[in-house]
């Protein structure tokens, strides 16, 4: 007993800072279907920046949904901020999710609400006082140049405007982790570069970033490591591997 206790202490000491998101032999399946991803092992360090690549249907969105805690792995261990999600109760999960910002592929805005109310969502769910909410949301909406549409219903806005709302909503709470699902999928190169710049800025401020994409251009232009999904498995490529491969 005593020795195993010492061993555990020793273990922690050698690992150093735990990964922010860690997966051990993780599998994903939907209902009784086949496993979409199998035996995924992965550890994202605080402040890292990764691309997540793979063909359409490879499981990028599914893997991200594990990371933003929308589902549990069907097998294996998932630790987020050092907590094993299988042993975390619902309210604690909510608290963990507040530290994660997500930009969905299809934005997933609440259409009957205004731009302002959509962006305010992550602040309001943690009961921030309305004065502070107003201040922060206005500031951010000015920054993404949506102040003119602040009180317009989201359903009346264009795709590009919706995307900016989605991004503003993802970053309003200054998350520790930012997950973006094909954020440059529907925009031209110019805007894609601008978006990448924003993500890189946030990363420099300490945010851990994962961006799912199938754009080769993005990957070659920005030298970040790549999590690649293929046939239900995950391979990690360092940027130099990739360049060598080209």
């Amino acid at each position, binding site marked *: 007993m005593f020795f195993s206790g010492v061993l555990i202490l020793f273990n922690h000491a050698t690992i150093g800072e735990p990964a922010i998101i860690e997966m051990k032999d993780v599998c994903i399946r939907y209902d009784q279907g086949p496993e979409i991803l199998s035996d995924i092992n992965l550890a994202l360090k605080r402040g890292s920046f990764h691309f997540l690549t793979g063909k359409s249907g490879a499981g990028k969105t599914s893997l991200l949904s594990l990371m*933003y*805690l*929308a*589902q549990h792995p069907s097998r294996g261990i998932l630790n987020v901020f050092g907590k094993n999600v299988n042993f975390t109760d*619902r*309210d604690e999960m*909510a*608290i963990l*999710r*507040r530290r994660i910002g*997500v930009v969905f592929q299809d934005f*997933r805005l*609440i259409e*009957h*609400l205004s731009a302002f*109310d959509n962006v*305010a*969502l*992550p602040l*309001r*769910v*943690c*009961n921030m*006082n*309305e004065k502070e909410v107003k201040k922060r949301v206005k500031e951010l909406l000015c920054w993404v140049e949506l102040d003119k549409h602040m009180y317009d219903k989201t359903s009346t806005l264009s795709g590009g405007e919706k995307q900016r709302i989605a991004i503003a*909503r993802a970053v309003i*709470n200054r998350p520790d982790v930012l997950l973006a699902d094909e954020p440059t999928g529907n925009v031209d190169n110019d805007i894609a570069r601008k978006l990448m710049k924003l993500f890189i800025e946030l990363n420099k401020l300490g945010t851990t970033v994962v961006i799912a994409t199938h754009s080769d251009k993005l990957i070659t232009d920005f030298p970040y490591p790549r999590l690649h999904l293929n046939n239900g498995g995950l391979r990690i490529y360092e940027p130099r591997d990739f360049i060598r491969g080209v």
Partner: protein
Amino acid sequence: MSSRASALITRKQELPLHSDATGLFLEIMISIAVFLFAVTLAGVLSINSMLSAWNNSILGSLTIQIMPVNTVDIQKSREETLLHQDKVVEFFKSLPEVESATPLSDDQLWALLQPWLGDGINILELPTPRIIDVRIKHGEVIDYPKLAERLIDVSPLASLDNHKLWLNKLINFADGLKVLAMSILVLVVAISTGAIFYTTQTNLGLHRNIIEILHIMGAKDAYIAQQYAKRDAFIGFFGGVCGLVFAVPTIFMIAHLAAQIEGGIINEAKLDFFSWGLILSLPLFSALIAMLTAYYTVKRTLEKMM
């Protein structure tokens, strides 16, 4: 705390609960439930006041009847009966629980008998029973069977009739009615909470997308449950007010009809100030029940979601 409370009231509701059809259904359902509840409750409260009035009258007084002495000579019979009456009055006056014992006068007896016998009959010419009205001191309880035994010793012609026999039957009947009415009250509450439970569940399914977004943004279940609780509190209150608007005239109408029954039995069924207060505060209770049911339904249902 107060700023949090005010934020709760003024807070933007992310779920479009005010514009959906389940709200109208619930409001109609609750107004019907409160209508039934109010009318039944008025019934229960009236029965209660009736029962306590009857119980009081049992406690407060008793009537002694003395059969006429059976002889051919009417005048002699009358005199001997009056002797028995005096003995019985003496006996009752000697009891510490008794406040007064008053024999009915000839005029009073005649007034009682006249409806049956018709005019033009002199009761002095008939062998009539005598009646003694006995008042019991306030708060004293009489052991009726024992008293009846002692009374026979005093005079075999005297019999104790304390309304208890028939009132007892009436009281038992009213008690049964009360139990029935109370089970209706329980049933109405059960059906309403059931309906709120199912509409809330349906509604959660309807807004599954938004709820998932709220969860991913870090909303706790309580945050979502509060939005439902707040809406259903309003629905419960306004539904309750609608129900009362119909229930109050109905109660008055029933009371009016009941008052026309002769005999004064129903006259005891008065709703006092407290009863009316209870009935008029029903919307507060329906709001509270709707609120709590919605809150716990959401909490329970969400536990099976993401």
